[in-house]
């Protein structure tokens, strides 16, 4: 018998509530400091109560869902593959975020997801085109990143040496870096107009341009403006 999603979720809650009750019993009973008379219900009280409430509800729902005839339509294989790809690559992204670094992992994750979503499936014959776009994404991302690093560092040292404070401000240099990226993109879009118009190459061009562009914007906003320590990974400059 095939289990529908509703029954699976009800059963998952049932298992979770059993594990949660076991976890609540494993907790050391701690009471408020100075609670000599023992009036504090203790640190276990609420978790245990919740565990039993969830157990009762999940038993009821497991029973109820098993009596239902209608289950949601199963997903088509293509959509299932795209969701699986998104989840798998997102897990990989988190694992590789520190060793490889923000710039490369973000751009390549974006490229891969946009490309396959655009094509609406994953098939073996897409491999060559996909790899070509992968290399272009890598090159464009590194070019845009290198230009912005060069501009930001250059403006910083000019600002410091000349005493013109605003030149070295992160906001100003980020704005200039963004402006130069926009100019580069305009040149790329104008020169690649034909490829953008062709249905056979459209997906690749859009994926490459979007992934490198979005990565650069996120880098400038979070790293340069909000001082978030985005990991550098293998990019050493």
């Amino acid at each position: 018998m095939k289990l529908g999603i509703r029954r699976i979720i009800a059963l998952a809650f049932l298992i979770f509530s059993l594990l949660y009750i076991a976890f609540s019993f494993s907790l050391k009973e701690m009471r408020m400091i100075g609670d000599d008379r023992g009036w504090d219900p203790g640190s276990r009280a609420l978790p245990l109560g919740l565990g039993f409430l969830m157990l009762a509800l999940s038993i009821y729902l497991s029973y109820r869902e098993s009596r239902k005839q209608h289950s949601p339509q199963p997903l088509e294989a293509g959509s299932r593959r795209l969701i699986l790809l998104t989840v798998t690559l997102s897990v990989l992204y988190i694992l590789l975020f520190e060793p490889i670094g923000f710039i490369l992992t973000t751009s390549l994750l974006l490229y891969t997801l946009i490309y396959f979503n655009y094509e609406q499936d994953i098939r073996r014959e897409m491999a060559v085109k996909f790899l070509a776009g992968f290399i272009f994404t890598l090159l464009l991302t590194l070019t845009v990143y290198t230009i912005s690093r060069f501009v930001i560092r250059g403006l910083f040292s000019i600002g410091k040496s000349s005493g013109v404070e605003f030149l070295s401000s992160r906001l100003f240099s980020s704005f200039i870096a963004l402006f130069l990226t926009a100019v580069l993109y305009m040149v790329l879009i104008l020169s690649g107009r034909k490829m953008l118009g062709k249905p056979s190459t459209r997906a690749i061009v859009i994926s490459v341009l979007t992934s490198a562009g979005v990565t650069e914007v996120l880098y400038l906003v979070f790293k340069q403006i909000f001082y978030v320590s985005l990991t550098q990974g293998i990019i050493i400059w």
Partner: protein
Amino acid sequence: MQELISGFLQVFNLQTVLWIALGEVFGIVIGAIPGLTATMGIALMLPLSFQLSNATGMALLLGVYCGAVSGASIPAILLGIPGNPNAIATVYDGHSMTKKGLAGQALGGAVVASFIGGILSLVALALFSPVIARFTLAFGPAEKATLAFVGLTIIASVSSKNLAKGVLTGAFGLTLALLGTDPFTDALRIPFPEALSKTPLTGGIKLIPALIGLFGISQALFDLERIREGRMAPPQLKIGKVFPPLKKIASMWRIIIESTGIGTLIGAIPGTGASIAVFLSYERAKRITSSPRSKLDRVGSGCLEGVVAPEVANNAVTGGALIPVLSLGIPGDSGTAVLLGALLIKGVVPGYQLFSQNLDLVYAIFFALLLSNIFMFSFQMMGVRLFPKVLSIPMAVLIPVIIVISMIGSYAIEGQAVLSAIFDMGVALFLGIVGYFLKKADYPIAPIVLGLILGGMLEVNFRRAVKLAGGNFLVFFTKPIALAFIILALVSVALPIIQRKRKP
């Protein structure tokens, strides 16, 4: 007076005004794209607001909120598909007007109505929230615990057709809130404490990654299922005259007042939200216009009245839903749940304390909401021909971008501590996947968020109340306000059951 001026200055400065404008445009775009919700928009902007000052951060989120609520009317009118549930009722008359060649009038009417609803509900917010907040002065631990309980119960019973599913997800949210350490003793409360005592799990589940996962990533995965269906392209329409005749709007005064009342009131009831308010106001407007004495066009026939009623109501919800947020710390809908989360993360405690110690922030929120409504009106009017173009952005591009923004946004909260930040990305992804499967099985997401937000308040006050009462668990039934909250919780559970039994 000093606080009023301080609140004014916290909003009317170049930085904050620019952030509101940015939030507004982002909100309108998110609202206009079917499948992307207002709550998702606010959740995605949380990490940015976290980096800004309290007033500027809240102003940015309010801009997104207002923009997304009103932007939803664009596809509702042009394509007959609401951008999000706020515009469900706008579809009927709005799309009929488009078919009649009156798309410009419908879009313009929706903007004017949204503006009126937003401003009038702001007045209600400014009038009522201080009064209700003063009420909280009488709240001790027993009252606070039962208030958290009633908030959770109402959202659990309203957010799903199945009460058990609502309560179950609410309880699940509470279990997530209890992870980390005991609030009174700081003793670890995590599974396998020997092995995991040096991991970021000891800090518990943080609110922002959880909200981003539950509202951002889960929605993106959900939309991914429909990517192969494609989306209707926006029709090539002549928009024509946009601004509706003022005389016509003025003649709808009764619809406007009643819709504002419905929107503000429904918004202020925790857990209800705009989708109920828009239907109620639409039905009410239908009744008003079908009266033989009425000189207005009949709602349902593809007229401006049928657009104005739900659009006034959905923007009136924005102010209404903020009333319980600011005065009680209980959100009116899932969007304001995220706004409440943003306040709590910054250490701002809603209730009387907020109005007595942080009055300048309250005024700043009022001014920010005012400016958000003004920007919403101006941007939508100016961009009435431009914003529909966002409907051409392919979902194939949008979904991966949303997933990456969600991940980096979650990372940015602990931006200086790489391990914790990567853990937060993991939390967002995990809860995103959980939220996706729950949605597929018709479980509501909002109670999980409420559980996460109110879990701490519930546990601390529950234990404190019982201790102060000398171990007497009946303390919650002996205090009148606490008892009233418990009765309210029971009514909120019983009502949907009774209503369902009455239906044949």
